[in-house]
């Protein structure tokens, strides 16, 4: 049957099912197919913290949303054009996000009385007409999969488990995706289980063929490749990009990477990824707790490694004292906080950006450190390198504030050449003894004698003759570094430590403002993972004829030197944050600008449409 082919400029699909239904895998494979096809894309995995929540329940629903387009896009999208619902819970949990007219593909095999009752459906929504405003495709996906696998020597259970591949095959047909990558993936994943491999491929092909032959789908869609800048691309998640950035920074600085870490969602993948990279000389230490993870990283930094620790909010609380020690002994240390919804355990798999004030102020005493936040999954790579640059040059802890959305979300990344990366080796050197001499040319090493430019103290690593010294958390005499309780010395050291961090502002790029028509009176200022949502919202406003400027902070401490001027240049500054206004508080305090704070703390990224409305309102009230 020849089908009609329609062009689409962009599509949002959402795979949803039970935690055990393999929706993350299906979504991930569809993403890879889409990436290799050349669309621009952005993804949003959304899953429960429980490994296997009770089957068929609302808390057990796991979903994966993918937005892909023939042009450059910024977010995983607000509302799916297609929802794949593998059971009633998946339909119910996601239904409110699906606009009328969208396609809903439902697995009828799971819409049993029992499963319907479990989530509170009195009637079967696939049959009671309640979905008449939607393009409903009610398909017995499980039984079609099982039938397709007759002849494969797999158990009934394994056959049923392949239903995600059936769904993937069907969607791959519907959107004309290339399939070679998935075939290769399955072949390598099930290399040692030939029967399971055969079953998965058969299920995938059955899904594809079903689309081609059934009358349930009269239209096939095409989304042309996007015009991206020429180069080699791969699809990458924030955690993978951060991992690669840290390894690249290790190579470009010549410092061996030491990761001290304790598993925690959503940061653990960085530990997993780095632990595979031993051939890069990477040492990964799974510590007994968060405190030991950062303590070991600091010990490694003392010894001349690139000490890194990775965690999320609850772990940050535990690391606070050691970060304070690192600030006091003034050694490089990278702390990656992959933020999640809090307080306390909060919602481990849901995103939030509410650790900013903790990163700045969550330690005793005046304890300044540098803070950076990546804007997109791929930007985690560059942010890691920039964090290492600051850490080694200024001998300071640097906190990277990523979050769950960046960590697990993905986008195409233009792979940089190694030579194009910052040559961090030129940013620092270890102290050696012949550089230090006292009055009568006798060697004299002062561990807190600062570089006049950067105010960094010497990084004298054990094993260097003549520079033996002791450091610690007790206040040190300026220069000599010996214990000092002198009041004026303390005042001086407190100010010096702050001045060192403040001075970084002269060494970072100014914040750039995107104000295409130059007429904007409203600036939207964001930080971290809200970059895409804000950018997409600004586009909507501009498409509707409005003028709005956008700026995004990567450096949260210190702020770029021109930030105050930028704020003053606009009548109104809107600051959307996935917290209750933490950046807004800082801006008001520092620049006396009464910024407008917009906050939603739902464990999800902002929707572009929602933010566009907020921006319109602000513009209307200027």
């Amino acid at each position: 049957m020849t089908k009609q082919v329609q062009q689409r400029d962009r599509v949002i699909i959402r795979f949803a099912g039970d935690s055990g239904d393999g929706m993350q895998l299906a979504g991930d494979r569809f993403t890879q197919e889409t990436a290799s096809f050349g669309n621009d894309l952005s993804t949003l995995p959304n899953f429960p913290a429980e490994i296997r929540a009770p089957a068929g329940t609302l808390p057990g629903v796991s979903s994966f949303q993918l937005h892909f387009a023939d042009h450059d896009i910024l977010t995983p999208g607000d509302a799916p054009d297609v929802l794949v619902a593998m059971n009633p819970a998946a339909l119910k949990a996601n239904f409110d996000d699906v606009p009328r007219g969208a396609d809903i593909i439902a697995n009828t095999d799971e819409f049993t009385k029992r499963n319907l009752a479990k989530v509170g459906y009195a009637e079967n929504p696939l049959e009671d007409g309640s979905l008449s405003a939607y393009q409903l495709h009610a398909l017995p996906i499980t039984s079609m999969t099982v039938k397709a696998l007759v002849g494969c020597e797999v158990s009934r259970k394994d056959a049923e488990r392949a239903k995600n591949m059936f769904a993937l095959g069907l969607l791959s047909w519907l959107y004309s995706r290339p399939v070679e990558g998935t075939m290769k993936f399955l072949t390598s994943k099930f290399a040692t289980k030939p029967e399971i491999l055969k079953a998965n491929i058969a299920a995938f092909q059955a899904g594809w063929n079903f689309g081609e032959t059934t009358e349930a789908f009269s239209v096939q869609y095409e989304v042309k490749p996007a015009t991206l800048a020429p180069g080699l691309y791969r699809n990458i998640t924030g955690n993978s990009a951060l991992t690669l950035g840290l390894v690249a920074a290790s190579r470009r600085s010549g410092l061996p990477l030491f990761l001290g870490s304790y598993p925690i969602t959503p940061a653990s993948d960085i530990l997993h990824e780095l632990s595979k990279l031993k051939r890069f000389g990477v040492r990964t230490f799974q510590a007994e707790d968060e405190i030991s993870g950062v303590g070991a990283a600091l010990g490694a930094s003392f010894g001349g490694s690139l000490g890194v620790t990775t965690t999320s909010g609850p772990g940050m609380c535990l690391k606070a004292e050691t970060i304070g020690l690192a600030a006091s002994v003034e050694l490089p240390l990278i702390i990656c906080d992959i933020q999640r919804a809090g307080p306390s355990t909060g919602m481990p798999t849901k995103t939030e950006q509410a650790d900013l004030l903790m990163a700045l102020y969550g330690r005793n005493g005046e304890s300044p450190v540098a803070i950076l936040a990546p804007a997109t999954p791929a930007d985690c790579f560059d942010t890691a390198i920039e964090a290492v640059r600051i850490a080694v040059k200024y001998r300071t802890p640097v906190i990277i504030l990523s979050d769950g959305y960046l960590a697990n979300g993905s986008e195409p990344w233009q792979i940089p050449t190694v030579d194009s990366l910052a040559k961090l080796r030129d940013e620092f050197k270890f102290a050696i003894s012949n550089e230090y001499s006292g009055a009568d040319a006798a060697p004299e090493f002062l561990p807190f004698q600062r570089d006049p430019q950067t105010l960094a103290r010497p990084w004298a690593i054990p094993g260097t003759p003549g520079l033996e010294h002791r450091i610690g958390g007790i206040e040190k005499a300026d220069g000599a570094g010996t214990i000092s309780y002198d009041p004026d010395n303390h005042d001086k050291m407190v100010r010096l430590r702050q001045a060192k961090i403040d001075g970084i502002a002269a060494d970072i790029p100014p914040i750039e403002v995107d104000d295409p028509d130059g007429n904007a009176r409203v600036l939207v200022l964001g930080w971290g993972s809200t970059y895409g949502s804000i950018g997409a919202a600004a586009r909507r406003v501009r498409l509707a004829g409005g003028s709005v400027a956008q700026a995004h902070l990567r450096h949260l401490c210190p702020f770029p030197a021109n930030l105050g001027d930028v704020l003053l240049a606009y009548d109104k500054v809107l600051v959307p944050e996935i917290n209750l206004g933490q950046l807004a508080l800082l801006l008001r305090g520092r620049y006396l600008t009464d910024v407008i704070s917009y906050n939603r703390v739902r464990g999800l990224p902002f929707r572009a449409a929602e933010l566009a409305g907020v921006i319109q309102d602000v513009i209307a009230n200027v």
Partner: protein
Amino acid sequence: MSDHGPASQDAAGHGAAGHGAGKPSPADDGADGPRRLASLTLVPKADAKLATRDFKSDQEVRWCPGCGDYAILAAFQAFLPELEIPRENLVIISGIGCSSRLPYYVNSYGMHSIHGRAPAVATGLAASRPDLSVWVITGDGDALSIGGNHLIHALRRNVNIKILLFNNRIYGLTKGQYSPTSEQGKVTKSTPFGSLDTPFNPVSLALGAEASFVARTIDSDRKHLTGVLRAAADHRGTAFVEIYQNCPIYNDDAFAPVTDAGSRDDRLIRLEHGEQIRFGADRGQGLRFSRYGSLEAADVAGTDSDSLLTHDAHAPDPSYAFALSRLDTVDFAHSPIGVFRQVPRPSYDELMADQIEKARERDGDGDLAALLAGGDTWQVG
């Protein structure tokens, strides 16, 4: 990529850091002279002989007069030249407490870290720098209370660090609260009606935590203390040494039963590997197993000599060492000192370096360009 390899790290003055994956050299006597202490086989040898004074820093020692820490510091500084390593390859890491001030007084690299966390900091340093001799100085509050978790995990992990626990059975720096080794019922500022909790026996705890080296010594017995330090340095992996240390201000004479000339011979059991255990007046007592596996003192005269124990610190099973540690009740009825246990086990840092070396043998040194371009890629334009 030539500027990213490990060779240039050496050029940056980095020595063996990170990539120092060499295997320990044979510890036997060789062309290089006498046998190196086992924990130091990857540490460079000093060019010249060092003296005690070389390890004294210019900082004024500020413990209370009469503190046992003075004796330990003096013995430690006098012992350090025996390591025959350059001063710059010695690193002392401490936590918080009176004992943890020690690094300031030794002219080496050092870090006075935060309360309880010294084993964690030392683990990161020792695991990444096998060319260093790393010592942890800690106390009963630091190691057994706030830092208990790090201590037990360091012991089971067997990183090449030497942990010296100064046990004075009291909190000194916070001015006299009871500690996790204080006897139950201890009346202190924070326990005016007596403490309620059962104390830890540090040696039992270490043995329970899978330690590969466990010893005990006493601040006032310089010769014994030095011998135990030597044995600890001669152990590759984590060595745990409990040192009975007198606090003259808040817990004076806590260890008098085992330090006073009048009583100590009846109570102290000096452990020597391979020698029959003898103690008491005229060395007339020995040890034997009781029916349920604990140890008991027995008069040598009148006891079947086959049932009297010869000390075996190298027994693979820790049960005997644990039984020994249980002789040490809070009232010091019998208090063994010396090396309870010393068994060979690969150290964590060695295994870690091994994995890196093997990965490089198998896959070659990491290629950054290939790593960045890994996974599914596609070309645009």
